[in-house]
């Protein structure tokens, strides 16, 4: 799929995503872990991918630590499988941007922090959820089958790997946005210009220039 949020015109539809998986284990993995703040001193998102999980992956003298993102067998993975409350913390879009630029097209997890999930959606990246047992089973499978394809079907709300298909949950708005290709909200909202002006004029505190 292409997740080019900057493209003009109607956004692409994202019905399902296939690719190999990569597990990142642990609850409450916050955005400071996904992309440490010192890498945010940039004015574009280009090149952020290599800094994904940087402090988890490298020690003080840049020596590699054990982390799935350091493992060659996961280097081409596009489906990130995580546990609970992934992406909590700051609203930085740098976090999903870094993951996207590393190659992640979809996330499957037990739960996601809300702003993080919203930021993913704005990039056309689904964040689908399932209970902890389902997730742990999937993580174990990915570990055993780094070359095995996972199919995340956003429309049908299922994830298929090997011979197994499991039900997952996709937030209604997210599902609709991805499946119908309406996750590019700028164009949608711009078309309601008159209604925007009416709302603005009805608010006692708004003094606009137009």
């Amino acid at each position, binding site marked *: 799929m292409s997740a080019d949020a900057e493209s003009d015109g109607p956004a692409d539809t994202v019905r399902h995503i296939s690719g190999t998986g990569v597990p990142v284990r642990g609850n409450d993995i*916050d955005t400071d872990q996904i992309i*440490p703040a010192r890498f945010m001193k940039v004015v574009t998102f280009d090149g952020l991918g290599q800094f994904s999980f940087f402090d988890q992956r490298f020690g003080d003298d840049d020596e590699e630590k054990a982390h799935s993102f350091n493992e060659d067998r996961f280097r081409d993975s596009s489906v990130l499988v995580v546990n609970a409350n992934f992406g*909590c913390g700051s609203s930085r879009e740098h976090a999903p941007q870094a993951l996207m630029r590393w190659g992640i097209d979809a996330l499957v997890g037990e739960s996601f922090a809300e702003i993080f999930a919203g930021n993913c959606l*704005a990039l056309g990246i689904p964040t689908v959820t399932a209970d902890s047992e389902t997730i742990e089973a999937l993580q174990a499978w990915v570990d055993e089958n780094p070359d095995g394809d996972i199919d995340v079907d956003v429309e049908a709300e299922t994830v298929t790997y090997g011979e197994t298909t499991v039900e997952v949950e996709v937030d209604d*708005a997210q599902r609709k946005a991805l499946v*119908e290709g309406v996750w590019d909200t700028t164009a949608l909202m711009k078309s309601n210009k008159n209604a925007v002006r009416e709302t603005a004029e009805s608010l006692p505190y708004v003094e606009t*220039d137009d």
Partner: protein
Amino acid sequence: MSEGTLYDKVWDRHAVAELPTGQTQLFVGLHLIHEVTSPQAFGMLRERDMEVAYPELTHATVDHIVPTADQSRPYGDDAAEEMMAELEENVREAGIEFSDPTTGNQGIVHVIGPEQGITQPGKTIVCGDSHTSTHGAFGSLAFGIGTSQIRDVLATGCVAMEKQKVRKIEVTGELSEGVEAKDIILEVIRRLGTDGGVGYVYEYAGEAIESLDIEGRMSICNMSIEGGARAGYVNPDETTYEWLAETDEFADDPEKFERLKPYWESIRSEDDAEYDDVVVVDGDELEPTVTWGTTPGQGVGVTQPIPAPEELPEEKQDTARMSQKHMGVDPGDTMEGYDIDVAFLGSCTNARLPDLRRAAKIVEGREVHPDVRAMVVPGSQRVQEQAEKEGLADVFREAGFDWRNAGCSMCLGMNEDQLEGDEACASSSNRNFIGRQGSKDGRTVLMNPQMVAAAAIEGKVTDVRNLSEVTTV
């Protein structure tokens, strides 16, 4: 579904349209921007050949990367200089008001909005910063957004959102000596969890909230996001109106104040409003709270034992074990006596005047412990100026604190103010995540500003109630 709450009312007033996604297109009354999350959004706008729709409803400041010592330009750090220059260019092009350091109005975005009076009850306020929830203290509906949403707001004056549920958090009783707003919110997050608020907006109510000053309410709303809630608010009341009357917006324009006040009163939650959930916290029971771990939900009363991971809900146990290892603490011990190397008094949670006044009372006539590096970073240039006028700066300096210029500073370590190695920091900020303060081995202990002052003096986590001069809020 909630009904008749401030959230419902403000939402309805700002709803422009239903989008095909099922989300609501919500009009944004105030868009605050800063240097870290806005440049990419301006870039996206340029690529699409779009203009800023409502520059007059947009306000900029610089806070995250701004150096807090030498602020002469160009900044010593090239990356910081580049971000600042980019912001200057963007606001100039779009005609957006910019509280830059030369104006005397610069500061942390969540401090300057309120002090300039542009944060008002019944406004929808967004910013590419999760602590935008702070502005809810005024009865605004304020939430953090991502960069693509910033692009949306710049281009359309609107944001696409799903309506949330409303949880009323009623804090009863009276806070005792040494206990502050910060302790209320740390207790709320401890109890409900860092993800307990996902899908909710928090309405803070009850005697203990009503008797707080506006700054205390800001500390509470600020950390709503640490509890997973995208926004938090307090209904506007006389405390709110008194503050507003003295701000730039209204001090010289009492007519405008009178014109808007009926609107502010109209959006208060009804007495018979319906909530999706109600939680009651007994304010009488609270004591100064500190964190023992690496999430803001891992808090404990300063005299209480650190919990064993096994006592916690199952899904919290692994994180707790990892946190305790990182912090080097043992279950059963108290945090009292935990050695600290750095004391940081700053951030949008607790770097406003009343915070500094209370901390200064503790510090006055005492000295910072010889092994501690202590700094005060005021939330804004105005706070800084006033604190200098009142003599607070001298009190801190004489005690051995470093008195710095306004900015985010060591709250997130994007400028030169950072922890080194495994230094432990008593911090008045809002996040104790690993790596948050600039060193991945750094250890952060969150606490209220009086407690930070006490820790700075004693060189270890200290129950401030055992020192004299403790302020009851």
